[in-house]
C-alpha cells in the first residue's frame, strides 16, 4: 500500500539529512563492499587456480605406496604391465622415481639427477619430457633387456662433452656406490637455458633419464616401486581409474583396505587449495558480517532518532487518517531504502575494489548475478530487521501524545 508515496517520502527524509544518512549507511557500505569484493576475488581466484591445475595435470594421477610396517615390493614392474593391460583408459604409466649420483667423466665430479621409469616417462615428467634434439628416447626393447642406456639433457651434454651431439658416448656414473657405464641414446632440450648465469655452471646438476629395469638390475638396494605416475585420456576418467588402480594393486598384494595405496590427483589438490581459500573467505566474511551488524545497529539508532524527531509529524499523520500499519510501513520503507542505498553504494564500491585487488593479484574478478542479488536481498534484510523496532515504536504512538510532543 502507498508504495509510491512511501518511497518518495523515504527518499525525501533520507536526502533531507544527507550527511547523517551517509554516516548511517557507512557500516552497511563497508560490509557490503567487502562481501562483494571477497566473493568476486575469491571466485576469480578459484577459477584461476582450477584452470592452472587442469592445465598442469588434468589427466594425471600420481600413485604412492607407503606401508609403515613393511617395506619391499609394494609395486612391481609386473603390476604396471597388468595395470596397463587391464585398464584401457590408461595412456601412459611409469614408475615416478628419481635418485642422484655423481658423474666423473672429465675427472671433475658432477651431481646428476636420474629419473627412471618406463619409456612412457618421456610423456610424463616435467624435466625429461622436453623435445629430443639428438638420437632417441630409450625404448621398449631397452626396457625389456635392461640395457645400459641413458637420455641426457643438452645442458648436461654441454657440461660433460662441450657439445650436444653426444649420442653413442659413454657416461660413467656412480649411484649409491655402484658404478655404471651408460651409453647415451638421446639428448633432450635442456631446461636450464633460462637460468644461465644465475649459477656457476659446475653447480648445476645434470638431468638424465634411464629405464627402471636397468636401475633395479644394477642396484640391489632398489627394491620395488613406491611411486607411479599415470596419465588417462580425460579428466572424468581420473576418479574411476584411480579407484580401479588402487583396487587391483590391493588385490594383487593382498592388502585390501589397508590403505597402502594412495592415488592423488589435481582434484584433491584443488580441494585442499579450496579449503584454504574458503577459510580465508569465511574469515573476511565474518569481519564483513560484523560491519553489517554494526551498520544495522546504526540504522536502528538513526531510525529511533528520526521517530523521536518526527513525533509530531506522526501525530499529524494519524490525525489525518494514517493507521498503525500505514505508519509502520512508512518507517520500515525508510529503513529498508536507507539500507538498500547503502547496499548499492557498497556494491559499486565492492566492484571497484575487487577490480583493483584482482588487478594486483593478476586474476579476473568474478561478479555473479547471484552475488549481486544476495547483497541486495541482504541489505534489505538488514533494513527490515533493524527497522522493525523503530517502525513499531512510531506506529504504536498514541495520536494525541504524539501531537502534544514538544
Amino acid at each position, binding site marked *: 500500500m502507498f508504495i509510491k508515496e512511501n518511497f518518495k517520502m523515504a527518499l525525501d527524509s533520507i536526502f533531507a539529512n544527507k550527511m547523517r544518512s551517509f554516516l548511517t549507511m557507512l557500516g552497511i557500505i563497508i560490509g557490503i563492499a567487502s562481501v562483494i569484493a571477497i566473493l568476486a576475488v575469491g571466485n576469480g581466484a578459484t577459477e584461476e587456480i582450477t584452470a592452472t591445475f587442469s592445465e598442469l595435470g588434468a589427466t594425471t594421477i600420481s600413485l604412492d605406496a607407503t606401508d609403515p610396517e613393511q617395506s619391499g615390493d609394494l609395486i612391481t614392474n609386473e603390476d604396471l604391465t597388468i595395470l596397463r593391460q587391464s585398464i584401457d583408459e590408461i595412456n601412459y604409466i611409469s614408475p615416478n622415481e628419481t635418485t642422484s649420483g655423481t658423474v666423473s667423466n672429465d675427472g671433475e665430479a658432477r651431481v646428476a639427477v636420474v629419473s627412471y621409469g618406463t619409456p612412457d616417462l618421456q610423456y610424463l615428467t616435467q624435466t625429461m619430457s622436453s623435445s629430443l634434439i639428438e638420437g632417441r628416447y630409450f625404448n621398449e626393447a631397452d626396457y625389456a633387456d635392461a640395457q645400459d642406456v641413458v637420455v641426457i639433457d643438452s645442458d648436461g651434454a654441454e657440461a660433460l662433452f662441450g657439445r650436444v651431439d653426444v649420442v653413442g658416448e659413454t657416461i660413467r656414473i656412480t649411484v649409491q656406490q655402484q658404478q655404471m657405464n651408460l651409453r647415451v641414446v638421446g639428448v633432450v632440450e635442456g631446461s636450464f637455458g633460462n637460468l644461465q648465469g644465475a649459477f656457476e655452471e659446475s653447480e648445476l646438476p645434470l638431468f638424465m633419464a634411464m629405464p627402471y629395469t636397468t636401475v633395479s638390475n644394477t642396484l640391489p638396494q632398489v627394491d620395488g616401486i613406491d611411486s607411479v605416475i599415470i596419465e588417462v585420456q580425460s579428466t572424468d576418467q581420473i576418479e574411476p581409474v584411480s579407484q580401479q588402480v588402487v583396487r587391483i594393486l590391493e588385490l594383487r598384494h593382498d592388502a585390501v583396505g589397508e590403505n597402502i595405496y594412495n592415488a592423488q590427483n589435481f582434484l584433491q589438490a584443488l580441494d585442499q587449495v579450496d579449503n584454504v581459500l574458503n577459510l580465508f573467505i569465511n574469515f573476511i566474511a565474518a569481519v564483513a558480517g560484523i560491519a553489517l551488524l554494526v551498520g544495522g545497529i546504526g540504522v536502528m539508532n538513526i531510525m529511533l532518532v528520526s521517530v523521536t524527531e518526527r513525533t509530531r509529524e506522526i*501525530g*499529524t*499523520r494519524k490525525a*489525518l487518517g*494514517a493507521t498503525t500499519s500505514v505508519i509502520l510501513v512508512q518507517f520500515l520503507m525508510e529503513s529498508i531504502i536507507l539500507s538498500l542505498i547503502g547496499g548499492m553504494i557498497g556494491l559499486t564500491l565492492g566492484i571497484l575494489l575487487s577490480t583493483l585487488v584482482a588487478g594486483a593479484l593478476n586474476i579476473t574478478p568474478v561478479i555473479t548475478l547471484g552475488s549481486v542479488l544476495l547483497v541486495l536481498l541482504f541489505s534489505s534484510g538488514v533494513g527490515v530487521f533493524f527497522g522493525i523496532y523503530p517502525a513499531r515504536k512510531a506506529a504504536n504512538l498514541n495520536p494525541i501524545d504524539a501531537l502534544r510532543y514538544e
Partner: protein
Amino acid sequence: MIEITDIEKIYRMGGEPLKALDKVSLSIKEGEFTSIMGPSGSGKSTLMNILGLLDRFDSGTYKLNGTDVTGLSDSELAGIRNKEIGFVFQSFNLMARMNVLENVMLPLVYAKVPAKERKKRATEALEKVGLGNRLYHLTNEISGGQKQRVAIARAIVNKPSVLMADEPTGNLDSKTTEDIMRIFQDLNKEGTTIVMVTHEPEMAAYTKRIVYFRDGVLQKDENQEPKTLMSKEAN
C-alpha cells in the same frame, strides 16, 4: 451529528486524579458554527481531542453521525478521522519536506483516492482558500497565514462532516485572523459544520453558538447573531 452524554476525562498523574472533563453533555447539529470558550486549563482542548477521536474518554457516550464510537479499534478510528473530521491546529502541523499541494493531498492518500483525482481535489481546496497560485511552494516558503490556509485546505479536502479547529489563529496577527475567520464563515455558509476552540471573545463573535467551560464543566451554551465579515468575492 455530534452527540456526547456525560463524558468524563480523568488524568491520573502521580498525585490527585484530575477531572479534565466532568460529565459534559453537548450536541452539535449539522451546519452549526460553534465556539468553545473558557479560561486556560478549563478542558477545551481535552474536549476537542475527544470530539476529534484523537483521545479516549473514561466514561459517557459519544455518537458521531449516529454511530457509537466507544469500542472502535484504532484503525477504525483512523478511518473515521480521515473521512469525517478535518483538523486545523494552532501550530499548522504541515509536513516540512512536502510542497503545498502534497500537504493537501495527504488525507486523500490515506483515503486511497487515485493520484489524478487527489491532485484535482487538492487544487480545488487550495483555490477555495485563495492559494491556487502557491501549489508548488514548500511550506517554509509561505507566511503563517498562508500556512494556516493550507492547513484548512487540507482539513476540508476529503469533505469531512465536521471541521475542528483548536485556537486556529493563536499564532497569527489580527489581519490574518480575519482572513481565516472569513474562510471559516464562507465554508460554514456552504454547509460545513465547524467547532472552534478560542479564548478570544472577538473570535467567538463570528460564530453562531458559544459554549463556555470552567474547570471541566460546561457552564453556558448560548446562541447569538454572528458578526459577519464580507466575503472576499463581495469586495
